[in-house]
């Protein structure tokens, strides 16, 4: 997306002569500047993991989290503007609540994703608003549908995934993910998530980061949990080990 549509790039309600809506491309740039976020689908669980870049030592460790709980069994992680993320999390919760009010059942992730994607898409249609600078990943698990993982882009388009990534090191994370085997057990999956986030973190560009995760699956009794102590520990240890491995590899080459 290195093209620029001089004169045709100032409004979300305007196409450029070659058929682009540049404001959406530009919003995606905000996502590309954000710390990496990944989602992985395992056998009976889904994990969300983020590289939360720490901007000040004065903040509490859990300040400005980028993982949210939307429903009992639905988690959401974002890459992009955190303020936009908080807002969309609230919208998603309202959608989930609305569905539950009507059907007395947790909203199927497919439907939630459709509704939130519709919402995000609406912001790409008018010059009076700007598109969200946001890539949203949803994860859920339930007995009937099993593990599910969806991602929505700033354009409002959404897809289901086995594994997906957004943010700074999206490409690198994708390369790592392609090496993973399918249908992993929870602990293995958690380790992989830790390894990927720690590996793709660039020490030179951002010194400090915090690994944060959301987990939902059979092992969490179908509840989405943010930074569950026992699993976060496993992930961080695995990540640390992977990074040391990486460093020693580099030295030998």
């Amino acid at each position, binding site marked *: 997306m290195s093209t620029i549509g001089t004169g045709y790039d100032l409004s979300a309600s305007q196409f450029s002569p070659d058929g682009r809506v540049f404001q959406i491309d530009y919003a995606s740039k905000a996502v590309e500047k954000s710390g990496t976020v990944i989602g992985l689908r395992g056998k009976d669980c889904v994990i969300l993991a983020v590289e939360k870049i720490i901007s000040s030592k004065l903040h509490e460790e859990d300040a400005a989290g980028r993982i949210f*709980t939307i429903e009992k069994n639905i988690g959401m992680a974002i890459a992009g503007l955190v303020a936009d993320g908080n807002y969309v999390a609230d919208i998603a919760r309202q959608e989930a609540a609305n569905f539950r009010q009507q059907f007395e059942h947790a909203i199927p992730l497919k439907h939630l994703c459709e509704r939130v994607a519709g*919402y995000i898409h609406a912001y790409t249609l008018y010059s009076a608003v700007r598109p969200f600078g946001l890539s949203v990943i949803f994860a859920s698990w339930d007995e009937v549908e099993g593990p599910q993982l969806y991602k929505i882009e700033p354009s409002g388009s959404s897809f289901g995934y086995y594994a997906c990534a957004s943010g700074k090191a999206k490409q690198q994370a994708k390369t790592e993910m392609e090496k993973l085997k399918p249908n992993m057990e929870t602990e293995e999956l958690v380790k992989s998530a830790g390894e990927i986030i720690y590996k793709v973190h660039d020490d030179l560009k951002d010194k400090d980061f915090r690994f944060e995760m959301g987990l939902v699956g059979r092992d969490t009794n179908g509840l989405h949990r943010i930074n569950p102590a026992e699993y976060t520990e496993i992930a961080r240890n695995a990540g640390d080990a992977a990074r040391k491995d990486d460093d020693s590899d580099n030295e030998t080459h």
Partner: protein
Amino acid sequence: MLNNYNGLAQPFWQNGPAPGQFYHFTGGQQQIQNLPRELTTAGPYGTQRNTARITTGSSVLGIRFDGGVMIAADTMVSYGSLSRYQSIDRVFKINEKILLGGGDDFADIQSIKRTIDQKMIADQCRADEIEMKPTELAMWLTRVLYNRRTRMNPLFIDVVVGGVNAEGKPFLGNVDLRGRFYEDFVVATGFARHLAIPLVRESKPAGREFTAEEASNLIRKCMEVLYYRDTRNTSKYTVGVCTPSGSVVEGPYKVDENWSFASTIKGY
């Protein structure tokens, strides 16, 4: 309703489309999604409404003891005087700190319970380990119920709210369809208000709370009396117990019935 939730999803511009109105947002037609007028305001003078309950639960009994509260209710939901539904739990666990026992119109109980459950999910979503306390729920209920009654459209419910507050302090209170609220070591709805409360009061030891065992014995005794005396009662009942370590609903238990005395009763 959805978009009035917290006023965030305003229309993009005056009378413009609002995001979140997913199926119509390009048309620009403004739908004011308020509750129907007849649900929120009193009708013009002379308008009458059906003010009867339909399917009802009878007694709920709550007793506070030194380490928490116990709430019991039988499992009968009647349709008029018909014993329509005979095994329905009327004591609910709301969260680890709150129990709710529901009496009077059961549809209204189910409705308010749905709303409360959604609030609990909202609590969980915040993931900040802050849970609603029983006093907060009781206060919220009084506001809702009083508001409904001033609109001449009350929810026909009579509920017992119990649990433990922040410092592990037991709380037990009653909220009714008018939005009345009171707190005591024993509260009840339905016939238990007449039959059980005096029984519990007269066994209250001076200067101290009940123990858990005393409370449990009193519940067993009261549920038995209620079964014998209240024709809208059944012999099965559930008991909710809430202590600082959490809340749980147990049962159903069965009243130890004995009708051998029946033949001695004459004159009917």
